[in-house]
């Protein structure tokens, strides 16, 4: 067992789960699938972090209007994550910069990390799921 695991008051071990999101929404199914697995994980009271790297940062872009393409706009679900006690959202600074985006373009509060911080955060996890 890892030393980083903590124990819930009277429950099983809580593990640190990280979801790595690197795909733009709608063009592929990855972003939606990730979100669904995140919501499932939340019901097990685990320590969940979401990170957004490369085109994954586009998942959080404000102002998504999908009526014209006939696909459900799932971006409001990121705002609902707080209600499932998922509050650890991290965004890669370099990915934002390359795309001309800033935190003001995102629809939820996030913590922006540099390369080293992101790498350290990954190394602290028990389980990493990649989308």
């Amino acid at each position: 067992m890892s030393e980083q695991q903590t124990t819930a008051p009277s429950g099983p071990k809580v593990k640190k789960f990280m979801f790595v999101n690197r795909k733009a929404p709608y063009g592929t199914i990855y972003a939606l699938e990730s979100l669904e697995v995140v919501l499932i994980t939340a019901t097990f009271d685990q320590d969940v972090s979401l990170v957004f790297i490369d085109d994954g940062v586009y998942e959080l872009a404000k102002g998504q209007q999908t009526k014209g393409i006939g696909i459900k706009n799932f971006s409001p679900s990121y705002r609902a994550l707080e209600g499932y006690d998922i509050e650890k959202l991290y965004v890669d600074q370099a990915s934002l910069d390359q795309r001309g985006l800033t935190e003001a373009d995102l629809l939820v509060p996030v913590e922006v990390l540099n390369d080293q911080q992101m790498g350290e955060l990954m190394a602290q996890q028990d389980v990493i799921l990649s989308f």
Partner: protein
Amino acid sequence: MLHIINKSPFASNALDTCLRMAQAGHAVLLIEDAVYAATQGNATTERMRQAGTKLSLFVLQPDLDARGMTAKLQDGITPVDYAGFVDLVEKYPTSQSWL
């Protein structure tokens, strides 16, 4: 001819290869995740500006809207709807989808 791109310029080399081979007077239509290449202030902006000097550039508006990028559309790229997409396919005798 008409070149159609559907991949993000940050995740695929489809746009780069297309722009290498497209000839003056050709059209390029950005759809699906390729619409990010039509946005301003990013790593592809200058490349698209240069491409626009010899090519006709279009972007599919519903895909731009879906991704929240409508307000970031860069100058020189013409938005089209689905009917406009069909018009482009009809206008140019040859189409290539750079999947």
